[in-house]
């Protein structure tokens, strides 16, 4: 019976996957009508397809791709994706090869998310088993979180728009997911590769090193020792075999080694491709420097562009530091509180940096919304979930309208568009905060189950002894 159910589930999963891919392909055939590649929600200065094409053109005309302020991506992307920006097939829409690469990247990401989710769920169930909580949990339904996450990622309109809009964020997202997948399934070179590439492409995933270290050191789901101690204290004996493994440094050292290898490799490749155009320093200046100094003030769905367009020039550096430190400040408290759930920690980090990064796009939101699916069981009693869902829908409808009113019709005002960006930021904040609270509540629930059990046994003891 179980098996049949599973089979049905997997069949419908594949149906959805195929449907989402076909939907993408249909959209790809009408790129001119949609004009997604120049939408501010899709293409930021970092992920814009047109800028990539411009960088490739500059490089082809033997100029530095970073000459001028057009291209700010990696030189490796130019090498890999650049030729696809000019290749045309007769009778097919322009950039079809590039779009197919995006679709494949999305598909691979979804499969990796699925595998990681299944991995996570197994680890979670194992933990429950070791805490003798399986029976208590059994009453409530357990969703196959891997499938859910993969489907959320694939069918999310944000992902579809980012994929069809020819931005480079599917590739960046794939690197992040590759890193998490590698760490979850203990493929250390793969994890290191994903981490290095993700950092190289968009800098912010660098902070994912903390969840990756926890993942490698202790596995995807390791409840705190305290719980075990409490649990086994009650049972009277400590079952050593059921205790979670301690923190192991071996994989981390190997991870560090592999990261070093991959970063040297990436830097050497970049150095070779930029040898005649000013070398690595220019690359760092116009990729990381551009990210950190928020030079481009064109509108996007974040809040920083308008802030820096309005703020007084002499406060600029101060606020730059404040906003970037905001990301860094939260790393430590989150790591302390959520260290036993490294994947969840990674999700929160991804959500935070896609919210606070200098040039956010819907592709970044697509990533954390996909990862959210991993924790569908834990989030089942999250507060404000309907409100959040309506908020996301509302903002994604209102924001293009406001943009149109301001930029195209000239009847609106920058403030209207900024207001939707503000609301979007608030929604993401609520999502992160409520998500963290929901996870903490879930932990509490588990703990309560344990205590409830002991309470039961204790009351049983008391009632036994009283007569």
């Amino acid at each position: 019976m179980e098996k049949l159910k599973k089979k049905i589930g997997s069949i419908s999963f594949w149906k959805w996957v195929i449907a989402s891919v076909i939907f993408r392909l249909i959209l790809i055939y009408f790129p001119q009508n949609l004009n997604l590649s120049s939408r501010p929600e899709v293409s930021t200065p970092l992920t814009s397809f047109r800028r990539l094409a411009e960088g490739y053109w500059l490089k082809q005309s033997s100029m530095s791709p970073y000459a001028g302020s057009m291209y700010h991506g990696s030189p490796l992307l130019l090498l890999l994706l650049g030729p696809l920006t000019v290749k045309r097939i007769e009778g097919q829409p322009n950039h079809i090869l590039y779009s197919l690469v995006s679709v494949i990247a999305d598909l691979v990401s979804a499969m990796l998310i699925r595998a990681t989710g299944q991995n996570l769920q197994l680890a979670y169930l194992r933990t429950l088993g070791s805490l003798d909580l399986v029976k208590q949990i059994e009453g409530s339904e357990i969703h196959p979180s891997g499938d859910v996450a993969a489907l959320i990622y694939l069918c999310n309109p944000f992902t579809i728009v980012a994929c069809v809009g020819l931005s480079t964020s599917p590739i960046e997202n794939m690197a992040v997911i590759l890193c998490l997948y590698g760490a979850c399934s203990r493929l250390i070179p793969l994890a290191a590769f994903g981490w290095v590439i993700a950092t190289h492409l968009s800098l912010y995933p660098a902070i994912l090193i903390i969840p990756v270290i926890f993942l490698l050191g202790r596995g995807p789901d390791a409840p705190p020792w305290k719980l075990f101690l409490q649990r086994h204290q009650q049972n009277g004996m400590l079952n050593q075999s059921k205790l979670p493994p301690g923190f192991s440094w071996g994989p981390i050292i190997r991870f560090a080694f592999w990261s070093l290898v991959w970063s040297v490799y990436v830097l050497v490749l970049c150095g070779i491709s930029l040898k005649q155009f000013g070398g690595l320093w220019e690359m760092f200046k116009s990729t990381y420097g551009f990210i950190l100094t928020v030079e481009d003030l064109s509108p996007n769905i974040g809040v920083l562009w308008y802030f820096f367009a309005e703020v007084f020039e002499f406060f600029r550096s101060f606020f730059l530091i404040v906003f970037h430190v905001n990301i860094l400040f939260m790393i430590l408290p989150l790591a302390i509180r959520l260290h036993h759930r490294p994947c969840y920690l990674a999700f929160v980090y991804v959500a935070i940096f896609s919210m606070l990064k200098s040039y956010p796009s819907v592709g970044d939101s697509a990533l954390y919304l996909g990862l959210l699916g991993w924790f569908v069981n834990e989030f089942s009693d999250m507060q404000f979930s309907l409100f959040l869902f309506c908020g996301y829908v509302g903002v994604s409808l209102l924001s293009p309208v406001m943009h149109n009113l301001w930029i195209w019709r000239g009847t609106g005002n920058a403030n209207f568009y900024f207001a939707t960006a503000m609301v979007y930021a608030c929604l993401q904040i609520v999502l992160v905060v409520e998500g963290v609270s929901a996870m903490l509540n879930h932990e509490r629930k588990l703990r309560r189950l344990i205590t409830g059990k002991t309470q039961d046994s204790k009351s049983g003891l008391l009632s036994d002894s009283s007569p």
Partner: protein
Amino acid sequence: MFYLGGFIVGGRLSADSSALCSGSKWHVRLVGRSGGPNVTSRIGSDYPYRSVGLQEMKMLYARQGSESDEKSAMLLKAQADFLESSTSYYAPEWSFPPASGNLRYGTLPREAVCTENITPWLKLLPCQDKAGISTLLDRPSIYRGFYLSQRLHLTLTGSGYEGMDLSIILEKTLTVVLQPNSQRASLVRDSEKHIQPSWSLSSIFGNQVGGKCVLAETSNVYLLLDRDRIFIEESSLLSKNSSVLYKFEVEKYSESEPFDLGLTWKILVVWLCQQAPLHASRFLMGSGNERGAIAISLKSTQTTEGFMGAHSNDERCELRVDVFQVVPWYVKVYFHSLQVFVDQQPKAVSDIIEKIHVSPSKDKVSPGVMELVLKLPCSVSSTALTIEFDKGFLHIDEYPPDANQVFDIPSTIVSFPNFHASMVFLENHSLNKSPLLSKFQEKSHVMSYTEVLLVPLTTPDFSMPYNVITITCTVFALYFGSLLNALRTRVTEEESFLKDKGSIIFIIFIHHPTISEEFWFERKLKGDHNQPPQTKFVMVCCQENWSATSAAVKVVGKDNR
């Protein structure tokens, strides 16, 4: 030297005066030429700081002797100041052939029509507008014209790093297009309404020239007339394209007997200047304030056939066209989107464009420059180049005071190297002495300047900086505070559970009321009416007087069993 180049409808008038101011170490020569609407500074090839630009030149100026500093300061203040900012000048590679690479070129596409703009320019003249030809520059009559362009051309000559032979030649050009007061002319004779109005210097400028400026070496007024149109009866000796030039020496006149010049027409004359083979115009495509495209369209003029006839003997008749386009940095041009249409048919870029030089714009640092060499077939009737761009978004301080007034893109310069604009005069040694005339006779390309483009940019709300700062910071505070709060909170139940059941020793501050009571109370609230747990506390007080170290009680939860 200062030249006033004037185009007066129905006749062409040029005037020049020259002055040489010498200091102990160096001298300024002021030279001018009528020409396009631009400010050029040309730095000699052996100038040590040639790549650095005008700022360096000014510093070099300051290092030179002191007597003439006043002049130099004025010079650079006048119109060159704006060139100091790197966003407004550029170094064209090969669009201005004699000075490739060493040239700094900058334009101000729009200047307000305001007498304050011409005053500093006039101050550079030795007699300002007090004497000589420049007395003609009566502001109201100049600004009434159709077209006005001021131009500075600075050339650094001499080997002068040590300051010995350094000299800077400044050519100043003022080009105005004026219309003679036709009403007055028509009053004279009603029958001559249809021919071009007659004019005189005094009727156009409202002033007469009373002698030359004392500092000027020469001060001449030239009148150029199209030879074959007017003096057909005399033209048999002269080549067809030559014109008749009249020279009037202003020094022969004085205050009491001022110089005036006028023409009274008897017949209708159509004045023809050297025409470019293609008529260049430029326009914007697209709508909205996010992106757009610049289109440069070249349409063949009717006279082209005549020119083409000369070249058509070659097997492949080709017309070479140089296009020089500058865009400010806030117009972010995608050079890969360049498209060429010849006779409305899209063509491969590599077929038409022989050479391309691009220097992409850097945000807030340098403008984008595009230089193209097009090879067009002679039979071409129209060509169009389109290039896409994104509009940038500026910081509120970077907008001009009236931000919703559109931004200007300097005009494209389209030059035709196969066609020369030089004038041919009769060989006359006395005429060739004049720098103005020798300039006119120099071989130079036919250049056409397109109109200035107006680009509307999106504006942020200028009244909002405080609101934006406070609201954004509030959102950030909300994020930080609420997330930290969510992480920090521990449910009391959890705490009390740990107190109750934990076997780990932990510390409770002493101001807690009786722990068991509190615990009991909580459980009561939750509807748990069991007996309070029979916990026994072992209180370990280190000292009786509650010193800092002993302000805690160690509570050891006791095993119940």
